[in-house]
């Protein structure tokens, strides 16, 4: 009996993080070097502040303005998360329907692709008009629409990329279509779904911030960036961008973490053949 077998990787959190630290070391090194280079160049070449402030200056501005910036960041973050949830939920629903009734999917896909080519952000003034310029709902709508396509396409690809034998096997058990969905198509689609969701986190943040640019509550982050830039307070604009980046990365990280939990069976999560 062949015994080329890999023992199950113990799924202790500490071990996962330990491996994480090793994997992340090169990326962290590049980050540190990059920031140091930026700081050094700005100081060494005496770059003017409004062109490019040094990272230390951006950080100082952030600290001085932390209350306004963090509350503005969270305001926009809520818009992004709201849009993400609505858009993704709708996308998964549509993907399920299209995978279940393929002729319908074939009929609708060209329109979905065409709709994706529309510069959605240009609709921001229109959604402002629909939902009220001060309402977060108008930005959520923009974020939701932007998020929809990548999540829908990835989920649909996952639902339909099932090996034919997997379906034949289920049919040999006299399984009904809904059993095949529940036990084969949906589990197969999960890695694809998470790929879409991770892309969607970033898109939702972009949608919400750019949506803010077209007018909105004074509390919103996008408005802060636009106003700071308008009065040549570029260090404030940079500090706001810093807040947006941190929130965007945290959002992405949260979804990536959820992926690890949900796909704990997946070789990529369990460390592969070590």
């Amino acid at each position, binding site marked *: *009996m*062949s*015994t*080329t*077998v*890999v*023992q*199950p990787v113990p799924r202790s959190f500490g071990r996962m993080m330990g491996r994480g630290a090793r994997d992340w070391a090169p990326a962290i090194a590049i980050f540190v070097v990059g920031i140091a280079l930026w700081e050094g160049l700005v100081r060494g070449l005496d770059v003017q502040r409004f062109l490019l402030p040094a990272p230390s200056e951006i950080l100082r501005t952030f600290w001085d303005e932390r209350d306004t910036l963090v509350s503005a960041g969270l305001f926009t973050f809520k818009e992004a998360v709201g849009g993400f949830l609505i858009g993704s939920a709708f996308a998964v629903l549509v993907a399920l329907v299209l995978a279940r009734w393929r002729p319908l999917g074939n009929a609708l896909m060209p329109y979905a692709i065409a709709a994706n080519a529309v510069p959605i952000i240009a609709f921001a003034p229109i959604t402002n008009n629909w939902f009220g310029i001060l309402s977060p709902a108008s930005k959520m709508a923009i974020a939701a629409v932007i998020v929809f396509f990548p999540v829908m396409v990835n989920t649909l690809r996952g639902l339909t990329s099932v*090996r034919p*034998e*997997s379906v*034949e*096997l*289920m*049919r*040999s*058990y*006299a*399984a009904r279509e809904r*059993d095949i969905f529940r*036990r*084969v198509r949906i*589990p197969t689609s*999960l890695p694809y779904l998470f790929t879409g969701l991770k892309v969607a986190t970033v898109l939702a943040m972009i949608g919400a911030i750019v949506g803010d640019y077209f007018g909105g509550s004074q509390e919103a982050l996008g408005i802060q960036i636009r106003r700071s830039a308008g009065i040549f307070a570029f260090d404030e604009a940079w500090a706001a961008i810093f807040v947006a980046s941190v929130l965007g990365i945290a959002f992405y990280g949260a979804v990536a973490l959820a992926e690890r939990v949900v*796909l704990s*069976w*997946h*070789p990529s999560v*369990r460390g592969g*053949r070590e």
Partner: protein
Amino acid sequence: MNEQAAVVSLRSVTKDFARGGVRALEEIDLDVRPREFISLIGPSGCGKSTLLRIIGDLVQPTAGEVVVNGKQAHQARLDRDYGIVFQDAVLYDWRTVAKNIALPLEMLGWDRERRSERVGEMVKLVELAGFEDHYPWQLSGGMQQRVSIARALAFDPPLLLMDEPFGALDEMTRERMNMELLRLWQESGSTIVFVTHSIAEAVFLSTRVVVLSPRPARITGVVDNDLPQPRNTDTREQERFFELVTEVRELLRTGDRSGEELRA
């Protein structure tokens, strides 16, 4: 032998593929008796797998009749009369070994206790005890295929359909799996229809070898295999084994030639 007794009964089964109007199977007549081990052998692409899928009601024949256990093939599938094993193990990556084997039992509505009891038996039968909680990617190809066989046998189907189950394995593993399959066949008392393109494998395993011609597949001949049971490693060295191998090889060649004459 009356038709009622046959586990599988094929009458003038013909299959045309709509796309390109290719005829895959032509007028196939075959009866498989209980406890038989039938091998279907033929050149690759001749339609052996299609024939297997027609028996399993996974592909519909263009013409002809398929009766399994005295029922229409469709009813037999709904009654879960057969287990199926493909060339790839087709395990579900998100399920452990135990849960893969339990899948058909879940579909049959067995309760948890009964399932785990049966999974325990099956794991022992295919010698995978201790690997219940492993995921498929942690197993070698041969072990994965054993899980797939355990899954097919778990609900005790009277008929086992196997589509080149050992085709992707290396020669050594393949010969060992052949021995294991014969042991399982004898212990379970099921009937097996086995698709292969290895002459040696067909002769070693089966009670009858059905030789198919190139597309469109027709039955060129059926070789009754009188090699004594139970078979073992010595079987492959007996003179009779080589005679039967030659007989099958010549039938395959006849099928080839008649095809050429038709084309000429």
